[in-house]
């Protein structure tokens, strides 16, 4: 079942001679539960692609359809709510709320949606992420790997259909990187979530079910191998 459909997505910054074509007519689809990696050089347009799919930025042309919904047809308020319910973000530098502990960070997006957090699911997630002992710790009391696991938990907790990860292992050592990717794959499979992840790490990209390459703003679908 198709979850994400990207159609001729383009993004141009500036105009005239100063125009920079960050993304040129990118098109691809992802199935529900698929785990895909986006690779490319720095400045090639990977992050632009991710930001556009996440509705953080607006395209110059093209559309993004998530679960049958054209996200750019939504107004700002509707898009915020849609993002809250359907898209989970994982950042390279974690971006946790420093004043909240691990558990509170994970359930925060659900609170934003004025819903009661599912305590059972929270416990289960903490168990899967190996954070049971660290649930009351503040981000500053956690290691980088643990912080990224909290970020994964936060992205998963509202059960979004799509998880967008921007170099989630960029700030981690190789052991922690492997662990985070393992968790991401495991949990996305368990909860049938689609993952689109930017990475520079060749080994991590190879572990993905599908690889997309972006080079000078042009997207190429490399299929299962690179």
């Amino acid at each position, binding site marked *: 079942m198709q979850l994400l459909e990207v159609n001729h997505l383009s993004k141009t910054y500036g105009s005239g001679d100063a125009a920079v074509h960050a993304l040129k007519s990118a098109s691809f689809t992802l199935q529900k539960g698929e785990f895909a990696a986006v690779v490319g050089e720095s400045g090639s347009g990977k*992050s632009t692609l*991710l*930001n556009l799919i*996440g509705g*953080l*930025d607006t395209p110059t042309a093209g559309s993004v359809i998530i679960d049958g919904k054209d996200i750019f047809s939504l107004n*700002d*308020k509707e898009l*915020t*709510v849609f*993002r*809250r*319910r359907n898209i989970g*973000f994982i*950042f390279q530098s974690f*971006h946790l*709320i*420093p*004043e*909240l502990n691990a558990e*509170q960070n994970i*359930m*925060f*997006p659900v*609170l*934003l*949606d*004025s819903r009661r957090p599912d305590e059972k699911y929270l416990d289960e997630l903490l168990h899967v992420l190996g954070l049971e002992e660290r649930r009351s710790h503040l981000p500053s009391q956690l290691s980088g790997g643990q912080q990224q696991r909290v970020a994964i938990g*936060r992205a998963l907790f*509202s059960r979004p259909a799509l998880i967008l990860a*921007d170099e989630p292992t960029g700030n981690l050592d190789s052991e922690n990187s492997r662990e985070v990717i393992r968790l991401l794959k495991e949990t996305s499979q368990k909860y049938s979530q689609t993952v689109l992840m930017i990475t520079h790490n060749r080994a991590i990209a190879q572990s993905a079910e599908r690889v997309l390459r972006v080079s000078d703003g042009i997207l190429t679908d490399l299929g299962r191998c690179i």
Partner: protein
Amino acid sequence: MRSYLSLAGISAKAHRRSRRVTQLCIMIAVVLVISVFSMVDFEYMHMTEKLVRDHGNWHITLNHVPKEEAESVWNEADVKAACWYDTFNYRLDQPICLDSRPICIIGTEESFFTDFWKDMLTEGRFPQNGSEALLNQNAENILGCRVGDTVVIQTPAGEYSYTVCGFVSDTSYSLAQDALIAVLDYTEFGRMAEANGQSREMQYYIQFKKSLSIKKTIANLKASHGWTDENVAENAALLGIMGMSTDNYIVGLYGVAAILVVIVVLAGIMMISGSLNAGVAQRTEYYGMLRCIGAGKRQVKRLVRREALHWLLLAIPAGAVISTLICWVICAVLAYGIGGEWAGMPVGRISWIGIGIGVLVGTITVILAAAAPAKRAAAVSPIAAVSGSGDGQNAGMAKLGKAPVPIALGVHHVFAKKKNLILMTASFALSIILFLTFSVMITWIENALTTNKPYSPDISLYYSDYSAGLGSDLADDLRGIAGVKHVYGRMHRLTEVENCEKANKIDLISYDEIQFAWARADLLHGDIDAAANETGKVIIAFEKGTAFELGDTMDVNGKTLTVAALLSDSPFSAGSNPTVICSEETFSEIFGACNYSVIDLQLKKGYGDETVADIRSIVDDKVILSDRREGNTETNSTYLAFSVLVYGFLAMVAMITVFHIINSISMSVIARQRQYGMMRAIGMDSSQLRQMITAESLGYGISGCLVGCAAGLPLHAWFYRATISNYWGIAWQIPWPQLLIIIGVVLCSAFVAARGPVRRIMSRPVTEAVGSL
């Protein structure tokens, strides 16, 4: 954690230390508002007590109303107390005398002293029958009589003999008039008044029970009896302070408090908003991240507002305690330090009204102040979190020129963001405008409240008809009395003038040497020495509407007088004729040898009633000894209290200015700390960093001063002309001392403001500063 809004509380607690400045801003606003309203509340209590003491605890009097009709009020309204009152020879102009001195006769009932003027009866009791009388303390001092003595009052209808049954206190009016007063039982008074053919002006004093419905009660009484304003007189002062009158003191007082509060709220919004804005600028990625994980714009706004309200909650208890302590100190200074009419200021009380209004205004201030930062936080794009594009992305290109790079960069920061420059300049300029405008009040106080004038006498001696009967030998004798500091007499004559277009008659008054010396302080134009030393030269005091100029001449009694000097003020109240002042020699040359009409005395510190008794012992019995000491103390204490208020307010403006500048610069640095961290990483040392931030800070200071002066000076001039020039003729001048003080405060604060942030930046590791967002 039940709601996302709980983050606000958690965040406020977690950042308690780093957000000290914001907390302090909120606390200052709360302290100022509570202090202003607590002081108004305390002043209300004090004024109510003072008005009851001075004007009596009555609400209305009924005049020219038949006895039965007046007393029927008991059945129609909630009357708590009432009594009859009448007086004759109040102006001391009739041949009704005690020991050959004119005496004022009052007739009333006992209730007058038990319900209406409780502190007035100082000794003895109210007359129990027609043979007893109360006298005032002045009579006790002049006549030396005691309780039980018999006094005889001479009237045209015969002599009346009374036993003194007690004494009542003097008012500043009776002291200034040197009046004798006798209080009689109301029936006895009627007998004496009737025998002397006095027309009765009976007054019926009434005090109501329920103070809230007095206005309505009065209206009902007037309507049902057909009474007019002539029949019903209100105790305007007391009703005024109770809010039951339209033209009243307390409405003015609340008006002043409201203006102060508006200023405090504006300053508070300025400070708090600036500080919150900087916090938002510092946490751009944080808000971007919240937006990324699904927070809507409204939710971010709510979070920012809620966080500010949390700081308010933390600031309120401290603010209430500090402001109450401040009020206690001010009340103690007024009550014990200044005294006089302020002696009754309550010390050690808590004003719940003040605290309540402080909390309310504080909350409104914080909500208003948080609006702009909340909007700014909500406007942060979610992409800010993922791209790290917090600030400074749209800054224009810096022009380095020939100046050292740090200074050039600092100056560039000033002009980089126009909106920021306008806000900073406007807020600094506002402080200067406020300071300059309110500094006019200093000149106003110095001119309007006369007691600080060196010529204000403690005692004045004169005959009731102001005849020139006080010789210079009496002045010499008075100088010999222990405790007398200065004795200065004035000759006076209302005389016709010729060959003068500007007046037909003048009040010609003579000055001696010391009075000419005092007059120098009020010199507008001309030469006072010429008038003091040359016969035929005079000085004229400025009065609104007079057209006398230097060199004008007039002929008096065949002698030509030339105006040699103009004064801004004189000790004499404006009459219909111009007051012309000349030397004693000039006066004598015109009118021959003359005695003084008035001799004024000033007493040395520490000398009082005994010296007054000595003075009284050497002057003729018919001479009025007007004791102005109490009135002077009252005016003096008013002057001091006004000075405390005005200087306190100016100090407050200066303090807010200093604090705001330090806060603004600190916040501006915080907002750029990643940039500064980066500059440190590439080799900028602490002195270069200091130069850069000082240049930025001084840039804002200078632009603030320029705008502040450009707007503040015309406003100062306008305010000065309206309040000072119009009344005292003093021309407006650039207020250099005030201008230099406030410019100095602004520039010094701007200079000092850079030190703290630089120290903080240097104390942090470069890596932390770079990744601090």
